[in-house]
């Protein structure tokens, strides 16, 4: 049998999602961003929501997210994506809005914006990439950097006295009555990728159903700034990040019902 007999549409088991553009990704080999982008592209295609979806890109490595997924996008200032998403979804309640943010963007400079958007129960989905480091600016300490972790601004390891503690922002977010579905995922194995796809799908559906803010943290690797190979980075993440940032659902429901919301 010739190879040409095998390459036929009916034998196709995998193809690039139609929602991914032809642009070459700028991400480093081994980076988690590309996988998460592909999942979002697949989900938008699966749900048939290209015409209704508006993405909000952050500042950080994924600042160019708008180059890769074939939908309308807005580029926010550092940390402000949840405010943009609030403006979009409040004035366009028929649209499906999501933000895509890194740990510096969401958990440091944009803490006020994410907390208050989630607390108001804005009807959009948040995709939060937590790789414990600032990628775009060259590997400085992030709010989620682990104690002892070496970065460009913690060259002798993160010290709690000097640098404070790693921030479990997702657990804080889950406490807020405006959130519906809050989960922590990863994309380092095929099984994890499948789970993450289900989680992001659920988050998009929660936004479509106006259940409140849905939030998917993806514990991710930055092998380039961690100064590891992609394989080492996956292993380091499992051994060091998962104990502190354990994957799994944290909250699964709807925003609080105002009628039964307890204030005493």
């Amino acid at each position: 049998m010739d190879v040409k007999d095998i390459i036929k549409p009916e034998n196709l088991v995998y193809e690039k999602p139609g929602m991914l553009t032809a642009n070459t990704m700028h991400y480093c080999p081994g980076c988690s961003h590309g996988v998460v982008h592909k999942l979002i592209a697949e989900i938008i295609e699966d749900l048939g929501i290209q015409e209704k979806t508006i993405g909000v890109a952050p500042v950080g490595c994924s600042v160019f997210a708008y180059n890769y997924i074939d939908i309308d996008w807005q580029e926010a200032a550092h940390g402000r994506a949840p405010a943009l998403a609030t403006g979009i979804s409040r004035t366009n309640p028929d649209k499906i809005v999501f933000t895509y943010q890194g740990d510096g963007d969401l958990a440091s400079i944009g803490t006020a914006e994410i907390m208050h958007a989630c607390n108001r129960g804005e009807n959009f989905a948040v995709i939060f990439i937590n790789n414990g480091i600032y990628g775009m600016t060259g590997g400085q300490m992030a709010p989620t950097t682990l104690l002892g972790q070496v970065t460009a601004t913690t060259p002798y390891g993160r010290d709690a006295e000097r640098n404070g503690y790693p921030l479990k922002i997702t657990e804080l977010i889950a406490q807020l009555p405006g959130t519906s579905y809050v989960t922590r995922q990863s994309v380092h194995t095929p099984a994890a990728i499948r789970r993450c796809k289900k989680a992001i799908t659920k988050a998009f559906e929660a936004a479509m159903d106006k259940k409140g803010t849905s939030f998917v943290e993806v514990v991710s690797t930055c092998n380039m700034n961690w100064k590891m190979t992609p394989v080492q980075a996956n292993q380091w993440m499992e051994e060091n990040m998962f104990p502190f940032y354990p994957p799994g659902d944290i909250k699964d429901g709807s925003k609080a019902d105002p009628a039964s919301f307890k204030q005493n």
Partner: protein
Amino acid sequence: MGELKLMKGNEVIAEAAIRCGCDGYFGYPITPQSEVMETLMAREPWNETGMVVLQAESEVASINMVYGAAATGKKVMTSSSSPGISLMAEGISYIAGAELPCVIVNVQRGGPGLGTIQPSQADYFQSVKGGGHGDYHLIVLAPASVQEMNDFVDLGFQLAFKYRNPSMILADGAIGQMMEKVQLSDFKPRMTAEEIDAKYGSWATNGKKPNRERNIATSLEMDSAKMEANNKRFQEKYAKMQAEDVLYETIRCDDAEYILVAFGVSSRICQKAVDIAREKGMKVGLLRPITLFPFPKQIIGEMAKRVKGFMTVEMNAGQMIEDVQLSVGCAGCAVPVKYFGRMGGIIPTPSEVVQALEQKLIGG
């Protein structure tokens, strides 16, 4: 026309927003303009026109909510006062860079820092020179009456959409807080989704349609050559504003030998000062810039060829005087340009203005 009412300047901003078909207001309380959002919340326009009103967690958030909504082709606005506008400077720069229309109201108070809650015009530089980082300008409208607080909301949106550039209504605590007779505008319907697609489909990020490429609202451009081209396009836009949309008012300038230049509440004081000076036999007129950017430099240049001098009257340390000096100098004239002003939230009296005129310009 709408009904005739006695209203506060800040309340009129809210009423004018509803009536001009505004889609959304996002704000944060700050004195002396909190009545804008209070009035909107009490009016509940979401029941009447569908307009969204949201109290944000900060001015940083409110301007970014404006960004998000404006980038979908909606007609949206915010209001604040000086310290809050400083917090918005980042977002305003991004909105100017992404070429989005919106209206920002600044009911100025004295500064720097927390300053005072009393009226001031100390944000002139911040408003007309840009305010945030990068080469950009706002369209700056300076109302001098409660009526203009009404009129400039609609005008601000018209200019913002004409140029895809943020407009600022630069008021002050006096104009915001004082009550005057106002002829309200008629109601205009909000634009429908179809109208937005038809008019702004080339840029509005309101969901990619099969008949168009995806739209991206961004101020980012990594290619220097393309970024310079963007900067040049912005500059062309500002030049077009200068050519087409300068607004000013002249009062008793025809035979005037000396010209007071003042905007906003200062121009109201100067109207009276002109009357007093005329009674004293001084030939004084008033030029009131209505657009502070684009600045009415041409008329000042023309006047400079026939008058003996100018004096700006400003509630700051002398900011607009620089633009008047430039306008006079660019016309090749060398007549004196003086400044008189009060700071710290103090409004000058007409007699102080006349006295300064005599001491600094006419007697000198």
